[in-house]
């Protein structure tokens, strides 16, 4: 079947099997490889992207379900390849990544979280990231990064 999805501001289209997962559409049809796959039970959040502005796990959305909608991946946060987005800038500033595998999903979950609740506390950030696993950082610096990106003082 044919799907048309606006990805990172660009209209994309492809003929796909109905069972094609959105994450595979992004990675294999479009070559956008930032979005990772870390599990097969919708548990890890490594595949998180924005679908019409909201965080979703793209391993549990069919490309067909996204037909006609818009998707944002981490690649779409900056059009000049720099850390111009407050969330990616804060992740570097606070050392919110190590191996980087959870990072694209974590960043997109954070973007959605901040969008929905600009007045975040540490507890909000921790529960707001409950759908994203990181094996490297112990979350300490991820939480700090999200607070910084939301304009909060992580040491407060």
């Amino acid at each position, binding site marked *: 079947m044919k799907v048309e999805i606006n990805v990172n501001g660009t209209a994309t289209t492809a003929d796909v099997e109905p069972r094609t997962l959105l994450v595979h559409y992004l990675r294999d049809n479009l070559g956008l490889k930032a979005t*990772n796959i*870390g599990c097969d039970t919708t548990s890890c959040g490594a595949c998180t992207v924005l679908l019409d502005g909201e965080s979703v796990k793209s391993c549990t959305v069919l490309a067909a379900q996204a037909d006609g909608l818009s998707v944002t991946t981490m690649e779409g946060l900056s059009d000049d390849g*720099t850390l111009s987005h407050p969330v990616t800038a804060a992740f570097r500033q606070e050392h919110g990544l190590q191996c980087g595998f959870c*990072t694209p999903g974590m960043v997109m979950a954070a973007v959605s979280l901040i969008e929905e609740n600009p007045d975040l506390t540490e507890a909000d950030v921790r529960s707001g990231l409950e759908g994203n696993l990181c094996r490297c950082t112990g979350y300490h610096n991820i939480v700090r990064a999200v607070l910084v990106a939301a304009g909060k003082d992580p040491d407060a």
Partner: protein
Amino acid sequence: MSILGTRVHRVEDPAFLTKGGTYTDDLTDERLAGALHLTLVRSPIAHATITSIDTSAAKQAPGVVAVLTAADCDLEPVLVFDRANKKMVRPYLATDRVRFVGEPVAAVLTEHPYQGEDAAELVDVDYDPLPAVVDVEAALNGEVLLFPEAGTNVATAKGSADPGAGFFADCEVVVTKQILNQRVAPAPLETRAAAAAWDDGRYTVFCSNQNAQGTRDDLAERLGVDVADVHVILPDVGGGFGAKIGADPEYVLVAWLARRLGRPVRWSESRSENMTGLVHGRAQHQTITIGGDRDGTVKAYQLKIVGEAGAYPAFGAALPNLTGMMARGTYDIARKHSSYVSVVTNTTPTGAYRGAGRPEATQAIERAMDLFARAIGMDPADVRRKNFIAPEQFPYEITDEISYDTGEYAKALDLALRSAGYEQLRAEQARRRERGDTKLLGIGLSSYVEITAGGGASENGSVEVHPDGTVTVLTGSSPHGQGHATAWAMLAHEQLGIPMEKITVRHGDTDQIPEGAGTMGSRSLQTGGIAVHKAAGELVELAKQRAADLLEADVADLVVDKDVAAITVAGVPSARKITFAELAAQEQLRVHTEWDAGKATFPFGAHVAVVEVDAETGKAAVQRIWAVDDAGPVLNPLLFDGQRHGGIAQGIAQAMLEEVTYDEDGQPLAASFADYGIPSAAELPSFDLVGMETPTDANPLGYKGIGEAGTIGSCPAVQNAVIDAVAHLGVDHIDMPLTPVRVWTAIQQAAGGAK
């Protein structure tokens, strides 16, 4: 001002935060053009003989290029851990028998991965089930053997379980306990992946791995080819934690298939495969016995280990040996005895996992210390202080060859206790108990020492300045998140003055860097980092020699002007300056060097954990953790603390949540991320890190390793804290993970026993 010791942001981050890392499954390398996708058919049964495999239907399925079984595979079965029983060899695809759920049985190769999953379902394997050996008692009694030809389930063993008459004879108090250091899954967020091509008599293998060169050597040996005919390239690696060392059977198979089929082959495992296919860690059944006097002096300590090797002995079979070596922990105990037996069971093979052997030693001795303190009615902090190895006892010999290098164990514990406000915490705990609060407070301590770079303390590095002023650093150590590119650039920058952004660090390509030992055992900075430090120093000397003539000065009078990355004459501001780049333009300016410390280092520290336990439900939550982790001077606090954070989280995770269990048939009960309890941010607090720096004499910068310390320190502190919270109810031990049902059951049982 020196850059060493300062908080430098990672040079690798911009790529990771824009286009994302390039992991094995992301590769678009032209050498992989037209690659086939490998899907493995894995055994759903723990122990069975294979009576037949019918691949005909699978071969007819769309997109299928080949379906292969053991009958098609001429790879020699391998003894993964070479000191295990020689009969316990592992085939790449199961031959007549499967020995664990998840063991590869057939290989399906398709044009597209989706087709592989479809076709794999059509491979028809007939299994004739055998009784599964799941627990270590069954393995030891040997009624059912995994390898009948071996005549035993014992993979390897060392020492007598009997410490000898009189071992505890002069002790006023002796406490003994069976404890479990449970089986856990390393679960790096990137599962394993490999891609291989065979071209012109040479294998090119990309894989997710911690050591390119060791893996190349394994591949060459197992594929039966010359080392020169294997080229291993490690792209970005999404975490390893010890579990991605060496050539896994699947990696060998991918390479072999590429040659056999004449097309590149790619493989990327699913998480479900990873949870049974990748090695597990820990899995030690320990009996601890501690004896001493009522004044707190510990006189004798015995650690008896039955280790689970899983179905095919791998590195995990050997780790109890390291546990035994580190068994005494930070204490000067007159008599220490350890022994172990590693047995095979119908479960996933075990291997290294963050700490690998040392967490098991620390957990055991730190539990023993608490049990002893309880038995003699002394504060656990006081018992520890009474028995610490004193600073003047270093170097402190632990075997004929190995000594703890440097340590300040009492200082570390006192610092942690002071930071935590230990007295106030104890007072708060007492208040809650008196009030009959259902929210109980538990305070747990751990003191630890561990061994880093224990597997070899040598590494190579090279530094080259190019005529355009850029620098290339080559290192035999390769990272999977640790930040080598930043750390090594700092070390080079420190001596050359060349800006960080002009320094590129390369690693993990065996053609570019033929020698190296990778990243494991917290070895990198003190080996690979020091090699770069040494190479940069030697490069400065080389540059001085070349500049001496041009500057018409004595080499001894030359210095580096770091502001302009040039050689100049000391104390003569008007003197000419010759930049490294100018020297490189005249003649290649490159140094390759080897560094060998000749010995391991022994980081140490102390953690204090505070937990709250809901006495009604048994649910425990870690509220705070204070960590003193002393690994010598800190190169970059950003990276150093990052390692501690991740380590602490994994230690808490083992204490509180994670466990791989099997049912009596050997079916894994936590074989996905839905069932296996990796904590999210919501289960963890922020961590309180406290600094302390005691240099080693093993290398010129005094660095020890920090990769595993956090895990080793936090796990026992948290377990001790939860038990401490309910100790007044009569509970003296609960095995990990300290899930609500376990804690509640322990409380119930203690109450029942008290009646």
